[in-house]
């Protein structure tokens, strides 16, 4: 079992003929993901790797192949439009890998996607993987193994680090989800926690947060109020200097400075196990699986 993607996931790759898109499309196919279509406007009618039909539009791809999920590897200026195209095409999950999407573009994309009841993961995220079933995005397949842990994280390589250590310790995963670190993204911690709570195969959850914003604090409250499954959390950025981008106005808006200390305190208050180092996940999760 898994969340969001599984063996039935039928994937369309937007930007399949580009540098990143073609590389990762192959990787996903090798992992066993059903890549049923690709999209590159102007290359409709071609075949990718001799097997995957390429279309001019996502609408054409979905109509012809019944794809239910899209993954996006298009350059930043076109990514917001690509997300909306996917959301309008009838797929139920859109995963946007592209980094560098305009935040104001996302203020428009977010309600567009929500209105259609489509789940968006990202942008600027590594995607997700349900070990042994399907992989959508760029998480290296070989560091994962099937098992009982749900993993959700705001960062890419830190996720790999934790998953790698879990796998080395013989602790497998149901699904590993990278929600992305951009200010405005489609899926947050709570969405993933809710899905893991419902997934019978998931027995414990590893959650990796970062400084900035209040997502982790809200997730902690959600865990306390709605979850029966154990959660172990980590916050990166204890030593980071105060964010310089948003300055103080950002902290006023969110009613929080978004520091690591604040987030760790919220975890502790809400019964979430706190990993002080990435490697601590192994023992904390193992104890909770018993």
């Amino acid at each position, binding site marked *: 079992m898994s969340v969001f993607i599984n063996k039935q996931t039928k994937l369309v790759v937007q930007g399949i003929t580009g540098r990143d898109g073609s590389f990762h499309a192959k990787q996903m196919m090798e992992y066993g993901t059903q890549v049923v279509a690709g999209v590159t406007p102007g290359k409709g009618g071609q075949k990718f790797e001799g097997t995957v039909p390429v279309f001019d539009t996502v609408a054409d791809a979905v109509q012809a192949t019944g794809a239910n999920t899209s993954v996006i590897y298009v350059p930043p200026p076109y990514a917001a439009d690509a997300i909306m195209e996917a959301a309008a095409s009838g797929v139920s999950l859109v995963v946007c890998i592209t980094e560098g999407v305009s*935040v104001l573009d996302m203020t428009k994309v977010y309600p567009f996607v929500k209105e259609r009841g489509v789940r968006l993961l990202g942008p600027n995220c590594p995607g997700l993987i349900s070990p042994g079933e399907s992989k959508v995005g*760029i998480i290296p397949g070989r560091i994962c193994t099937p098992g009982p842990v749900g993993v959700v994280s705001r960062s890419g*390589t830190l996720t*790999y680090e934790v998953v790698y250590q879990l796998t080395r310790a013989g602790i497998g995963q149901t699904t590993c989800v990278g929600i992305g670190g951009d200010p405005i993204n489609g899926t947050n911690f709570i969405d993933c926690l809710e899905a893991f709570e419902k997934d019978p195969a998931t027995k414990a959850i590893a959650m990796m947060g970062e400084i900035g914003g209040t997502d982790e604090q809200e997730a902690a409250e959600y865990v306390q109020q709605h979850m029966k499954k154990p959660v172990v959390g980590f916050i990166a950025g*204890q030593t980071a200097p105060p964010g310089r981008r948003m300055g*103080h*106005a950002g902290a006023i808006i969110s009613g929080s400075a978004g520091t*690591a200390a604040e987030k760790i305190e919220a975890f502790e208050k809400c019964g979430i196990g706190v990993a002080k180092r990435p490697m601590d996940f192994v023992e904390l999760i193992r104890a909770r699986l018993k």
Partner: protein
Amino acid sequence: MNLHEYQAKDIFRQFGINTPAGEVVTTPAAAKEAARKFSGPVMVKAQVHVGGRGKAGGVKFCKTPDEAQEKASKILGMQIKGLTVQKVLIAPAADIATEAYVGIIVDRARKKPVFMVSAAGGIDIEEVAATTPEKIKYHAVDVRYGLMPFEALELGFFLYKDAKLARGAAKVMQQLYAAFMANGCSLAEINPFVVTPTGEIIALDGKMVIDDNELDRKPDLEALRDVESENPAEVDARENNLTFIKLDGNVGCIVNGAGLAMATMDLVKYYGGEPANFLDIGGSSNPEKVVNALRIITADTNVKAILFNIFGGITRTDDVANGIVTALKQNPLKVPLVIRLTGTNEEIALKILADHGLKASSDMDEAVQQAVKLAGGAQ
């Protein structure tokens, strides 16, 4: 990207916001000359990318051109929070009846641009938020509809009982929102938002922060970047597609991915060390990036040991190994080097390193502990 006050005000003017004419100068003599043109008292204002320049003595009221010259000579070259003042803005001083605060910021929780307005302007808005939060009104804008006239007027009436002032303020809200959206801002602020004794509305000080993701498609804004006012190492890093922030410790860190970079710094601290920097080489690395990263880090004389922590996903670890080898050939290191490296093409990478007499660990914890020790142990 932060804009200077004078740059933000230029943009305000393009969108019809009433803001005093000013002149940017770099010498005390030019300051005097500019002050003379405005015939009357002027303000001399340091143009630096930090808050609190007023408290630091970077903003002065001057009655005469001579005084402007004298104050400018003190402010130019002044250090404010580690940045040197290179430019001052000379602007006519305004008569002030009331000072309000008007700002827009992208809020991650609401996922919308949010207006913050308060009749208690002029001072730090943080202080208002902390002591009298009821004096701030927040309004989230649904970008699908834009800021609607009735919303702008509600904000105007929150600031002023008088209908003429409320309508005038509403107009400025619309203009500021238009400027914010058209320039891909993450923040735009007018503080103080002044009403003069004659009832005129003036944007007396302005601030704008541009979302870095917008700069590629907005070359006009990229051209406003003032590299001289930034930390040279950070400029160097940005121009080489690296994200770098200098800190005060002695363990130089080179990592791929922001989250892992922060976790690495935290682990350095956990083991008693102090990170010298945040440095993210990003996803698709190439050897050149590694060479640049090493150059930037080794320029910091505080650095006593260098730690690589690379988890190869998209990043190919052999690229990183090649980069290290190339960099060391060009400039042999004077401080010890610890390499942690795992993931994509790990075997090739290890071989490249071994061929040049370098070792690498596959364990993050072990590597961090070693780097801390080599830098001189727990502080």
